[in-house]
């Protein structure tokens, strides 16, 4: 019984795998394009979700709450609230911000457009406020409620509501992303499997001869897995660069048009994104080719 198990000849496997891609150049090109498009769509949603996540994290880490003093109170009465606020549980520090100062801060925030509001200085529409820093961010909701209970406090404001809205949005984006991963992932695997099937069909003669002379299934399989994997890898690479362009374009437009949205720069995420894209491509390639090969090699 000859069971020579010599080391695999990778040069041969790779050469054969690439031959398949060249042989069906147009088909391979189409497959790479469509899969790259699928990966791109998934990645766009993924990055939207990622950006929302970063925003939420940013907001959640802000443990400051602003409470506003009832405008019917005099300045002295307003300043007297300091002690009652300090006695609220979970309060770390309390800083009084008179409405004049609040107005300055507001103008500063507006920057170049501040002159529009300058006229209002005499008739300041803002209220005196307190900036409160919490000890424990986890007790946020309870603390806000307790602060509102303090007599003379008209309203409490925090980033919590925006954060909640964002979280809701994140859930939706996540759900869409997962659906897309399943759907477009399946489409991509199907495309790879079809391309590899074509390659195997074109070489069925060779395959049957290889089987008759005693090539193992593994040996016959490898060039086709290499083919599928290479197609997937190319799609991943194309999708990465496309993503780069699309992402930069979108973030630029977004920042231009709203000014308030802060986004993560591509330079900060590419090193995370590239391996993910390439790995996804490879996984799709392997799954697609293995599915086809299993069917083909039976008998």
């Amino acid at each position, binding site marked *: *019984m000859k069971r020579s198990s010599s080391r695999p000849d990778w040069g041969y496997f790779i050469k054969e795998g690439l031959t398949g891609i060249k042989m069906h150049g147009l088909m391979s090109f189409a497959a790479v394009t469509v899969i790259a498009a699928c990966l791109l769509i998934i990645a766009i949603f993924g990055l939207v979700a990622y950006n929302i996540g970063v925003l939420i994290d940013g907001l959640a880490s802000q443990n400051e709450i602003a409470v506003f003093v009832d405008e019917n109170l005099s300045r002295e009465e307003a300043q007297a609230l300091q002690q009652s606020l300090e006695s609220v549980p979970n309060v770390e520090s309390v800083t009084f911000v008179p409405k004049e100062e609040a107005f300055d801060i507001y103008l500063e925030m507006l920057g170049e457009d501040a002159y529009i509001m300058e006229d209002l200085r005499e008739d300041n529409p803002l209220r005196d406020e307190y900036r409160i820093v919490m000890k424990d961010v986890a007790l946020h909701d309870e603390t806000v409620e307790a602060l509102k209970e303090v007599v003379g406090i008209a309203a409490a404001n925090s980033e919590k509501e925006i954060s909640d809205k964002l979280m809701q949005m994140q859930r939706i984006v996540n759900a869409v992303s997962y659906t897309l991963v399943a759907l477009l992932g399946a489409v991509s695997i199907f495309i790879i499997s079809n391309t590899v099937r074509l390659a195997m069909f074109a070489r069925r003669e060779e395959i049957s001869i290889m089987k*008759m*002379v005693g090539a193992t299934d593994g040996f016959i399989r490898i060039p086709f897995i290499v083919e599928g994997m290479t197609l997937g890898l190319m799609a991943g690479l194309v999708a990465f660069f496309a993503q780069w362009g699309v992402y930069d374009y979108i973030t630029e437009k977004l920042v231009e048009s709203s000014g308030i949205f802060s986004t993560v720069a591509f330079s900060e995420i590419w090193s995370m994104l590239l391996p993910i894209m390439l790995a996804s491509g490879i996984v799709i390639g392997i799954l697609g080719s293995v599915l086809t090969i299993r069917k083909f090699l039976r008998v």
Partner: protein
Amino acid sequence: MIELQDVYQVYNEGGTHALNGISLKIDDGEFVFVVGPSGSGKSTIIKLLSAELRPTQGRVHVNGFEIENIPHKDIPYLRRTIGVVYQDFRLIDNKTVYENVAFVMRAVGAPQRIIKKRVPYVLELVGLKNKSRRFPHQLSGGEQQRVAIARALVNNPDVIIADEPTGNLDPARSVELMTLLEKINGLGTTVLVVTHERELVNQLEKRVVAIERGVVISDRTGGYYLDEEK
């Protein structure tokens, strides 16, 4: 060694009883002709020996493998012990003669170093050394067949099986082919030739197994005299 013991083969499609309790033993180093009319089950035997089929009933032993219950993963290793020359050659059109032969060595994982030595040697043996760069369509029928033989030989199998190897050869070429097969047999390889060319068989003093309707009806050395006996 090849041994069939009381083997039955019924094809699912059509329910044809191709083999009906056939028994046959071929020792290492033998040169055997298997003859019989069309449809008698000759090719079916070859398919059993290479595990393309499993016997419906009976035992088929080939070079230490039990075909009746060979695991799927062992089939490649069985096939490396036999070299089959098909009637239609089954060469790969877009590979050169050299590549057609080298490719089956690669398929069993032979290193390039060995392939480079072995392929020219085998091509020399079949008399095609100077045509190794040609493509199959640039060869005559007889030459294509010799490529097929070289390919069957190259992995140094224990048995060479040729199914109707003289099918499209003229008589002179057929004799040449038999001389080649005898040469291969002389190097220690068991040779099994399936044919229905009586003249050819009668020219050689070899063991002849005659098959009809899936059973052995005659097994003797020295020619195919069946018709004369009747």
